[in-house]
Structures are given as structure tokens and as C-alpha cells.
């Protein structure tokens, strides 16, 4: 079995690793490099728990071959907090009760971060599409959508937006 060297940047640090041809990004980052914010929920590409950002695009680490990431810049949830503390998305997820069991949370955060990088003021529909490959079984999607909109500065409850949730009714 052939091994190749892989050069990439992980959360701002340049790295070189020896990898096997069939090794997934999930296995490299989570199992070998201890980047445990990347969760493994299905290894089928269906749950989104392993979402990371590769060269600005959201990617599923479980179905991405590490070898295809040569020269790439990879970001995981470990890189979110800034010098001033939590990333606005992280704060918004806390404030809006967008993380119940927490298993989907880091994947959701990375999907949301990729969205906001490409589209700083998304509509509710944009947010729904951005997290449509991420499954959450506990929290329910509304608080997550609210949190992403809040972090984007679009305000909570989607006020003034078509399709915004009805406030005040529980």
C-alpha cells in the first residue's frame, strides 16, 4: 500500500503528514491528529457531524480522501474562538439554545461559518439551505436557524423577513 506525504494548513498551522491513499480526512484529523471537534455520526456523508471547511468550502471529512487535500487550508471548530473569546456563531448558539446534546453542533457551526463567509447577510432560506446537509435529532432546527441569523446580525426571530417564525407562541 502506497503512502504519500500531504502538506496542508490545519487551523492556521502548516503540517506535513504521511497518509495512506484510502485514508479519509476524518480518520486523519480526528483519529490521528486529535481534532475531536469533528464528530463521526455516519461515515456516509448523510449526517453532517464531520463538516469542516476546506479552502473556504464546507466539506464532509468522512467522505473526503485526505490525499485530495494536498496544499489545502482546513478549518475545524477548534479554530473558531478568536483572541476576544468565542466566535459570534458560538455565542449565538449558546444564547439561542441551539445545542442540546451537542453532537451535531460543531458540524452545524462549520456549515454556518462557510455560509457567512460567502454570504454575510443571509436570508432565512439561505440558512436553511446551508445546514440542509446537517442532521440534528435533538434541538430542532428553528433555534439553530435563529442562532445563525442572529450571528449574521440579521436579528433574532427573522424579524421583517418572509418566513420568519411567529414570535411569542410556544
Amino acid at each position, binding site marked *: 500500500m502506497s503512502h504519500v506525504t500531504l502538506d496542508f494548513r490545519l487551523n492556521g498551522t502548516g503540517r506535513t503528514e504521511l497518509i495512506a491513499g484510502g485514508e479519509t480526512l476524518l480518520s486523519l484529523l480526528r483519529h490521528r491528529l486529535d481534532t475531536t471537534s469533528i464528530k463521526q455520526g455516519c461515515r456516509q456523508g448523510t449526517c453532517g457531524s464531520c463538516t469542516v471547511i476546506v479552502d473556504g468550502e464546507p466539506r464532509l471529512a468522512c467522505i473526503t*480522501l485526505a490525499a485530495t487535500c494536498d496544499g489545502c487550508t482546513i478549518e475545524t471548530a477548534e479554530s473558531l474562538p478568536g483572541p476576544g473569546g468565542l466566535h459570534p456563531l458560538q455565542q449565538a448558539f449558546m444564547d439561542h439554545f441551539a445545542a442540546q446534546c451537542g453532537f451535531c453542533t460543531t458540524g452545524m457551526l462549520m456549515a454556518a461559518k462557510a455560509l457567512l463567509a460567502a454570504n454575510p447577510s443571509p436570508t432565512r432560506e439561505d440558512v436553511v439551505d446551508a445546514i*440542509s446537509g446537517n442532521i440534528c435529532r435533538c434541538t430542532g432546527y428553528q433555534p439553530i436557524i435563529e442562532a445563525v441569523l442572529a450571528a449574521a446580525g440579521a436579528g433574532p426571530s427573522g424579524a421583517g423577513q418572509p418566513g420568519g417564525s411567529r414570535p411569542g407562541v410556544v
Partner: protein
Amino acid sequence: MTVGLQTFETLRDASAVVGRDPSARFLGGGTLLVRALNEEAADFSTLLRCTDRVLVEIRASGSRVRIGAGVTMARILASRELAFLHPAARAVGGPAVRAQATVGGNLFAPPPYGDLAAALLALDARVSVQSGYSPRDMPLDEFLRTRDTMVRSIVSGVEVARPRGERSFRFLKVSKVRPKGVSLLTIAARLEDSAGRLSGVRVAYANMGPAPVRAAAVERALEGRRLEPLVVEAAAAAAANGCSPPTDAIASAWYRREVLPVHLSRLLLGVA
């Protein structure tokens, strides 16, 4: 299962290996291939990559557009030239899958997949295939009918004519989960108009058989007619002719046949 990964600079070299080594597969974005690896269901031990530019180019000339087989759904969505394919490309997975899933892979994706392939089929796409050292072109229709043998070749790209007019190309993916889930069935239709009558009608389905197929009976029912209720009714009556839909976790073959005419009518009447 351990696999090796080989990288080639030219399509010719890569296709020579795919052609002679039954344990080799060409790697598109890998959404399906890597999944098979993870599930211990891989029937291959070597993956081949190719860095040839032709795979990732989108080239428009006049009314025709050529799309490299390695172009991803995300790149289709970023291309204004390909606006007519946006609904189909957006129907594939979530954003992360779209950043990885390629056009070439979609032509091989088994049910319940193949949404983009259905759209390309309804656009009368032609496929460029490299088998061994010889390149050739063929209608997508023919390619899909023989695709089991095509894994021994490499698709370099597809070429389509842009549909004429805004509403003349329609795409509908029916799914039980919103905003998106696995397809129950997918319909694409080219409904171009010539002096008030439909001409060159193409209707294609994904998930109504082992590979995306054209709905020949529906095309015949529409060709040369106007899109009026009676005509739509006749088309709907012929909707499932010749289809052998799968039974899977999403729906039974019976259910797919039952609901197909309803969705086809809605698509044709523009109320989908």
C-alpha cells in the same frame, strides 16, 4: 480494506489503466466511492485521479456548453452560463456534498441518485468518453443504457444545448423531506415551443428505473401539441409506461408509479 491512489496527468493514461484493471475505479469527487470504502462495500482496490484541465473546464460556444466531468455541483451553481442547470445542481445533497459531487459521478450514481443526470438527459446531452486510447462521443441516452460497461472508461465531459426560453426547461425533484431529502422521483422536461406547439420534447426521470431514463411515451403524447389540460392528461396517462421503479426505504415501486402522473401533470401545468 486498503486502497491505493494513483494520479495521472492525461486522460489517456488514466483510461488505459481503468480499461485493463477491473479493480481500478476513476475517482470523481468520491462521495459515493469513499462511502463504499467506509462501509466495507468497496469492489475496487485502486483509485485513479487525473489532473487534466479538460475535466474541470466549463466552455460555452454559441448555444452549446461543454462541462468537464470533474466540475462539481457547487461550480455549476457559481456559473452564470449554467443558470438553466441550477435547479438540478441545487437538488443534489447539501452544500458540502455539492462542493464535492461531480457531473461525471452523477452519470454513474445509482438510484436514488442521478438528479443532474436526469436534467442532462432531458437536454439531449452528449457524453465524451475516453475508452483506452480512443475518445468518442455518444448520446447520454445511449450511455445510460449501457453504463454498467462504461465504468471501464472515463467520461471527460458532457455537452448540451442551452434551452430556448425561461420556462422551456423544467426540473422537479420530489422528496418527502424538506428542504431536501433523498429523491422519491425526479422529472426533467424540455418543452420548447415552435409556433405555439411543442417541438423536440424531452422528458426524463431519475429513480423510475435502474438508471435515469427518457419517457418516450410522454414525449410522443406531447410532441407537436399545445400544453393544454387534455394533452397533459394524455401525457400523465402514459407517464409510467416502460418504467421499472425501485422499491427502497423511501417508497415502494407501486407508490412511485402511482404518484408519478400527479407530479408530471403538475410540472407540465407549471404548478409544481
